[in-house]
């Protein structure tokens, strides 16, 4: 998956050489400019001299607590997105990290695909709000209010439009019917679970013949993951 965006400046702060090399490798291939710091001291110097778009931060550095670096970064009002890597999975660590301004959090070990997905999500967040939403074969032009599946335009009602917008902005997330109902409530009256099912089935009738699949999570809700099978 390549993102057709401007190259981003990313720093990987990780002391393990094997993992650091892998992370740098993955990010380089995606076309980003990547720096690496193996110690807290070097990371601090790099963070002070360069404005990064994304910081990949390991909490267990040999010389400093990663959370301390995060605190300093936020104290300098840096707008960099921070992805915390940790070998611990204590909830308190996670909460502390997010409280201190981390944007996301991954527990080691993790797959390359998951890492790439998280980085993409962070880059989306740090980018200027987009006029175009794309996922799989679906594309939505938010300013022109036009949607296309596999390049062919489709007509959507306003409810279908706002549902599809929710699915695409939250691609890869399971959305409960409650959550969908809450989203629609913002622009419409409250919808029952049954009404949501009706709208979903109409939406599906419009997008699925073109190969875009909206998955049902039985007894729960729906998932758009951009897959075509």
């Amino acid at each position: 998956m390549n993102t057709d965006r401007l190259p981003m400046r990313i720093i990987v702060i990780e002391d393990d050489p094997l993992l650091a090399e892998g992370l740098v490798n993955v990010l380089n291939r995606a076309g980003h400019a990547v720096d690496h710091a193996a110690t807290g001291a070097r990371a601090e110097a790099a963070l002070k001299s360069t404005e990064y778009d994304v910081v990949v931060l390991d909490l267990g550095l040999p010389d400093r607590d990663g959370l301390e670096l995060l605190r300093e970064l936020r104290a300098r009002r840096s707008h960099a997105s921070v992805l915390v890597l940790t070998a611990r999975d204590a909830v308190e660590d996670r909460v502390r990290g997010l409280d201190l301004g981390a944007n996301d959090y991954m527990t080691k070990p993790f797959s390359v695909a998951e890492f790439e997905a998280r980085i993409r999500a962070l880059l989306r967040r740090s980018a200027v709000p987009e006029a175009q939403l794309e996922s799989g074969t679906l594309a939505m032009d938010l300013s022109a209010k036009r949607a296309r599946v596999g390049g062919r335009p489709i007509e959507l009602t306003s409810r279908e439009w706002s549902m599809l917008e929710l699915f695409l902005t939250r691609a890869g997330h399971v959305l409960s019917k409650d959550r969908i109902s809450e989203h629609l409530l913002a622009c419409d009256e409250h919808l029952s679970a049954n009404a949501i099912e009706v709208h979903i089935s109409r939406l599906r009738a419009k997008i699925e013949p073109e190969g875009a699949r909206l998955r049902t999570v039985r007894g729960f809700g729906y998932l758009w993951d951009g897959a075509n099978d």
Partner: protein
Amino acid sequence: MTSAPRARQSIRRRLVLFLVTMLLLLVGAAAVITYFVAVRAANDAYDRSLLDPALDLQQNLRMVDGAPHLDLPPKAQEALMYDQADEVVFQIRAPDGTVIAGVSDLPAAAELTHGQHRFYDVDYREQNLRVAALLNAQNVLVQVGETRHKRNRLVGEILVAELVPTLLVAFVSIALAWAGIAHGLAPLARVRTELLGRSPHDLRPIPNDAAPVEIAPVVDAFNRLLSRLSEANALQQRFLANAAHQLRTPLAGLQMHLELQLRREQAPEVRAELERLHKATLRTGHMTKQLLALAKAESTSDAEAAVQPVDLYQCAEAAAQHWVPVAIARRIDLGFALEHATVQGDPSLLTELLDNLIDNALRYTPEGGAVTVQCGMRQSMPFVAVEDTGPGIPASERDRVFERFHRVAGTTSEGTGLGLAIVREIADRHGARVGIESPRNGQGTCVVVLFGAIAEAKHAG
């Protein structure tokens, strides 16, 4: 307690036994002393009246031809010797020792000087006699003896009057001691209740403010032990955190490089080898996570566990985010049937419990199967259950699957054998019971965690 090889020593019994022995010795000594005092008092009371008939007899003595003669008619003698309670006898001996009146077989009193009287005890015709003896100026000996009936009765009365209250005081003392010791030992009972009511993870010190001086050192010693245990626990936690870091970081590097290599063009045999290595790495990573989860569930003390109301519905909803994509990748239909149900617990441990239930079900369910996560209320108790359409667990294996590293024979999935052990450990921490049921349609497994089931059973019993 019941299986003690020897009867256990009881402080209360030992104290009371000691007290009973001492009191009995004291009462015995008091009885002996009282007896001698009573005998003396009885003699003092009755000797005076024993001397009177002796003096009467002496006054009725007349000297005829230098020999003493009792000038008293037999009727008068009888009247003189009459007593309601005792037999009374007399004897008069001439200076030469011959008996001139009265009974002949009463031995003569010794060591008497003229005009003197004395009292003494003597055995006479198999009875004990109290005798008053008088020697007049003419060396005539007058003796009056009586049996000891009324004296004995008085001694008895004095003994009863003295000893009954003493015995009463003794018994009351024992009873008070018995009750008092129980009262005195009450702080020990409180310490016991406090300790019995604790979970094995509660290492807070025992409150020591109210403990009396005798028990305070024991409680202090116990608290020192608890604090050492607590430190050891904290040390273990730090060790775990370090071990996690040490293991997981290289594993992350290994996994990342294998995945990057798998993305490249590879010769088929190299690819197959890389895939095997990748699988083994994933499994090692999973095993590390499971071991840490189990150790954490065990070692988290109650003080550290953040117990709060947790909605199982929200736990399951959060789990859906993680597990639905995993299920899709494995082509398993992961579904939900959720109702709100609140339990008191540690949210991170409960999330771990649910993750392991779902992970386990997904691992043992073949492609095309279904896994359903349920939560809500059952028999007015909160529950979570995860049902799958996998091969199922034979009834004979259902207890053993909760053992660590136990894996159902014949299964090929790459489970660690720790998932259900973690589930049970966490369930135990929450007073919940884990059971395995067969789904209604027969095929597969349904693992049910029923919260409050243990507390309910305790109340019923």
